[in-house]
């Protein structure tokens, strides 16, 4: 198990009187390494807040989140960013960075304050651009890209962030692993590299059908080819059904149901989730 959330609670402005309402209320869930887990729910159900708790951007009011057995709140920002990368719903830049510059920003935590990206970082950026099919965009200005291209580039930046190869801590860790497990050092190191978690908040919310399919295909490819663990939020039933191996239905901050898409995306549960008639839901799931 890569990520384990236990009895999570969260309220914005906790501690004020009267007590503010819980946005996340007693949520427990787990994410297995190498899986794609989707959090599905209507607007205001607490999906984005839950993702922020699970990625360490917010501290829970109660409960805890364990990443590979370690409490997220005990991890430094840099260590956390080595293991968890976040792709926001949309990215707006004030200035015209190139695609390569955006992807290289994913290497921030691997470099010292005044260090310049070296060959390892550039190789990592190239791998990330290749994995997302964005290499031809490398020299383009980010604001000139389409919505789908932007999403791919931000995913590439997240992949460069999770790529431990070339980082000082990884070099030291690999040396230690090699000493310990002389028989199968490369396999162990390779498995460790996949310990990253890619978190995406509504990755298709602002995309048209073509780009939605493109992002779905990309996430599936990353999961299969690189064993990437993916956690995403969405309110798109078909996207969740086509991409996710495990779905958590979130309603008013609580888990309504969880399981495989076949177990959770049923007309009865979905009609309860969105508070609409089951007869309307059935065609949407077809």
């Amino acid at each position, binding site marked *: 198990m890569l990520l384990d959330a236990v009895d999570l609670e969260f309220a914005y402005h906790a501690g004020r009187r009267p007590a503010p309402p819980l946005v996340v209320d007693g949520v427990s869930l787990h994410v297995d390494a190498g899986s794609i887990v989707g959090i599905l729910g209507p607007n205001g159900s607490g999906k984005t807040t839950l993702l*922020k708790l699970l*990625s360490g*951007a917010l501290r829970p009011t109660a409960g805890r989140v364990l990443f590979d057995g370690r409490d997220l709140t005990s991890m430094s*920002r*840099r260590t*956390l*960013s*080595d293991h*968890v*990368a*976040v792709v*926001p719903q949309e*990215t*707006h*830049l*004030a*200035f*015209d*960075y*190139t695609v*390569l*510059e*955006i992807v*290289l*920003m*994913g290497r*921030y*935590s691997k*470099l010292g*304050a*005044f260090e*310049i*990206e*070296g*060959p390892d*970082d*550039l190789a990592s*950026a*190239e791998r990330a*651009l290749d994995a997302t099919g964005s*290499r031809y965009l*490398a020299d383009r200005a980010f604001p000139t890209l389409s919505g789908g291209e932007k999403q791919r580039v931000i995913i590439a930046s997240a992949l460069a*962030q999770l790529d431990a190869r070339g980082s000082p801590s990884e070099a030291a860790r690999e040396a230690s692993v090699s000493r310990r497990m002389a028989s199968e050092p490369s396999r162990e190191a390779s498995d460790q590299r996949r310990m990253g978690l890619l978190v995406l908040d509504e990755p298709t919310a602002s995309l048209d059908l073509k780009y939605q399919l493109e992002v779905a295909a990309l996430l599936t490819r990353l999961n299969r080819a690189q064993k990437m663990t993916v956690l995403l939020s969405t309110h798109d039933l078909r996207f969740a059904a086509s991409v996710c191996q495990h779905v958590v239905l979130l309603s008013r901050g609580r888990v309504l149901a969880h399981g495989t898409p076949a177990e959770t995306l049923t007309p009865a549960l979905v009609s309860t989730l969105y508070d609409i008639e089951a007869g309307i839901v059935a065609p949407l799931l077809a």
Partner: protein
Amino acid sequence: MTARSPLTRGIPVVLLCFALMVAAIVFAPFIGSTDISFGAVFSRRIPFADNIDAQIFFLARLPRALAAALVGGTLAAAGAVFQGLLRNPLAEPYTLGISAGASLGAMVAITFGAMLPTGGVATAGLAGAGLAVLVVYALANARHRGLSTTVLLLSGVTLNAFFWALILLVQYSSDFAETYRALRWLMGDLDVVGYSSIVTALPLIVIAFVAFAWLARPLNLLSLGAEAAGARGLNVARAQRVAFFSGSIATAGAVSIGGPIGFVGIIVPHLIRLVVGADHRLVLPASACFGAAFLVACDVVARTVAAPLDLPVGIITALAGGPFFLWLLLRRR
């Protein structure tokens, strides 16, 4: 794709800007309404007390060129920092009310100067800037764990208006001589004699530039938004605080030397971005060097175009820089 960081492509531009800055500081003191000779300035045969050329060079024009370089470089770099911090291309060193605070302090010193010690105008300007910085920071930090850039902007704009109302009130109660002095100060003027104002402001500016060097990468990440920057391992609250305070003390230092000289802090960073791109590791040093060269050149024009009159350099920066920037912008589109 190359095997080198994209950063390396912009380094020649930074070096060129540095060369322009050095050339501007070296040559500007030789240009002016009175011709001076290079040989006479550095002559050891004429005592300094009798060497008019050396006195003009070392006591009038060189400090003025150095002041222009320091103010121009500081305002341009601070402008780039504020634009990055606020994620707003329209931000400049004066957006957050720092110059209005400094101006209020200076106006009070000019109008009620009899009650203040000598050199009180620059000190009062620094005090006013400090007051503005603290008020804006307290407001922006009040309801958030980190700085809210939206509250920061709104507080700055409101404080600007409030301080300007107070400045007008102080001016309303001034006599003609005080009003003229105050107006000249508000136009931005580099009419410094000697090095005292430079030496007073230098420590603030040096501290700010050390912070700017550290800020270059964090400002790049902040361009993605606070949450995305945090997810990449940046301590967002700390980076925002460092950017706010270093940009503010740099601006306060620059304004204490030359008054609120406009235009340099907003136009130079954009001009540099058109050439080197958006990476703050290039934008900050190139802006500082080019801003320095630009203000030295503008000051030469201000000193010579209507000689023997000295025009306020703030007029020249806007008149010279504005059309040039628009031309460059339209040419690139």
